[in-house]
């Protein structure tokens, strides 16, 4: 009996299958309260980052609200506690803290996402090639990875910072390179090796598939969950490292949560809790919130893709 499967119907079934597959995984992901909290927080930070240019263009006067060169002469002394005009007050230089906080969000997203993209790309190139091709490519590339494993990104970046002033794209890039070529490449390699030795790869070779076909259709999709987890954890690490560098003034002068915290602790007496809490607490909480958000998403991804963690 020849089966008639109309093209249109086939596409519908394909969609349904796709939904069943990703539906369960997305469902598992969304069923976790941690994931929802994480996503919601990321959403809030996203809105904050978007809000800054909008507010600058509409209600905020550039001279008074610019995060770096703004100054409000009508409210002295600085730092000034919150007022209806400056919802989070001003810092020691008379600049609006809320405006700074929003710009800092943008920098954090920039640092985190660039670092994650670079790290994932490099770890796949290095670890994937080593794991898939093996042999001398493996030995050579893993030699490179071994060197990078010995260089924890925050430490190396602090040393970089002593030698030259870094801007945030440099921080992001270096963090991405260091973590991508180091530990992440090693993990991607061992994962690739496991995938490569499964017999569906042999079946793909028997089908006539070359390396490109196998990497694209079998290896890369198999690596995706791992890469997603790496990406979110890289965001956390990169943002924390950037803050650390900015806090110690090892970066060029741009605004980030780290430099805000440094600014705040100038006017904050730690043990008596006297002074201007409104300068230091907003960036501190923002930093914690941002990192927790991505961490929670990472944990939730792990729960979905590593069945041994899954509670049935």
């Amino acid at each position, binding site marked *: 009996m020849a*089966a008639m*499967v109309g093209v249109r119907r*086939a596409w519908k079934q394909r969609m349904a*299958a796709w939904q069943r*597959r990703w539906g369960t995984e997305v469902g598992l992901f969304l069923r976790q309260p941690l994931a929802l909290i994480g996503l919601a927080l990321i959403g809030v930070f996203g809105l904050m980052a978007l809000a800054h240019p909008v507010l600058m263009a509409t209600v905020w006067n550039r001279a008074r609200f610019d995060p770096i060169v703004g100054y409000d002469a009508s409210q002295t002394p600085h730092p000034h506690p919150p007022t209806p005009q400056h919802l989070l007050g001003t810092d020691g230089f008379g600049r609006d803290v809320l405006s700074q906080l929003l710009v800092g969000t943008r920098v954090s997203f920039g640092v985190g996402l660039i670092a994650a993209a670079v790290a994932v790309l490099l770890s796949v190139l290095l670890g994937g090639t080593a794991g898939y091709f093996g042999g001398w490519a493996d030995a050579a590339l893993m030699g490179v990875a071994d060197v990078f494993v010995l260089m924890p990104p925050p430490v190396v970046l602090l040393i970089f910072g002593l030698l030259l002033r870094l801007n945030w794209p440099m921080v992001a890039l270096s963090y991405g390179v260091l973590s991508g070529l180091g530990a992440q490449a090693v993990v991607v390699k061992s994962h690739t090796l496991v995938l490569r030795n499964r017999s*569906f790869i042999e079946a793909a070779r028997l*089908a*006539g598939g070359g390396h490109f076909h196998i990497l694209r259709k079998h290896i890369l999709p198999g690596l995706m969950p791992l890469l997603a987890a790496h990406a979110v954890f890289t965001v956390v690490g990169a943002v924390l490292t950037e803050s650390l560098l900015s806090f110690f003034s090892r970066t060029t002068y741009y605004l980030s949560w780290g430099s805000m915290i440094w600014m705040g602790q100038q006017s904050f007496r730690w043990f008596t809790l006297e002074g201007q809490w409104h300068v230091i607490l907003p960036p501190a909480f923002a930093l914690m919130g941002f990192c927790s958000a991505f961490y929670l998403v990472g944990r939730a991804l792990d729960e979905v893709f590593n069945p041994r963690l899954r509670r049935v």
Partner: protein
Amino acid sequence: MRDEILVDIQHLSKLYPVETGFFTRTNLFVHAVSDLNLQIYRGESVGLVGESGCGKTTTGKLLVRLIDPTEGKIAFHAEDGVVDVATLRGKALKRFRRNVQMIFQDPYESLNPRMTIYDTVAEPLDVQGIGTLPEREERVAELLETVGLTPASSFMFRYPHELSGGQRQRVAIARALVVEPTFVVADEPTSMLDVSVRTGVMQLMQELADKLGVTYLYITHDLAVARYMCQRIAVMYLGKMVELAETEELLHHPQHPYTRALLSAVPVPDPTYKRKPMEIKGGISKPINPPPRCRFYERCPIADDFCRDNDHPPLEDKGGNHFVACYKV
């Protein structure tokens, strides 16, 4: 039809270096397959039987060129001429892949869990650029029904984890047959399946052989399975072929002491037939740099000094296409 050679294997060997350390170069080799000679005729099914680790899978993978031989020739008689499988490259290798396929032991491993059944079965068509999308869908649907996954439309866009072991192996069979190969290596295709579905899969493979004229090399460690599936049986021991004969001839008149030992472990379905039991000592080991004498010497109950002092016996015709590699039969 019986006389037309499809695959002609000459002096085929595969040696694996034994990993001793990262920097030390080893001169120890596992002789996984060693000087194997076999002619497979168009339309027949040859069983390859032997204990675990004797080189069955290695032989199968050599024949479909998943691994490269250390030595030897595999002449494959395709419609458009004879090719040497061992040296195929590029376009010629890709064309060869349309003629020869393999079915793997473990259907849980051989299907990509992230691909639908359709995508898995259509992969060879996709890679080889055969047909348009509607034609491929048509072909896959037809084939799924042929292998007993009916109605095809309810299986095509499922994922492997939504199928049972037997159904998965049927999918793997469909994938192997989608390019209409002439020769299929089946590597213990039923050994990982529930006993209840084994017969079904075996029957299917036999039907397909008749219907599509496929030639099988059927790898198994189970003589009963080989008897059901194959016209001829080759027995392997530690990388060497020790006996080759027509199925019934081999089962009723085994000559090599190893075959006789294997058979005395199998219950005889025919109560009128009496077989002398043969006991062998010890277990199978790895053929690492084996000494130049009969591979079976250590376990052979009838070995003598001649066996010890001479090289591994050649495979000789003992009459009626019954080949045995033993000095004492």
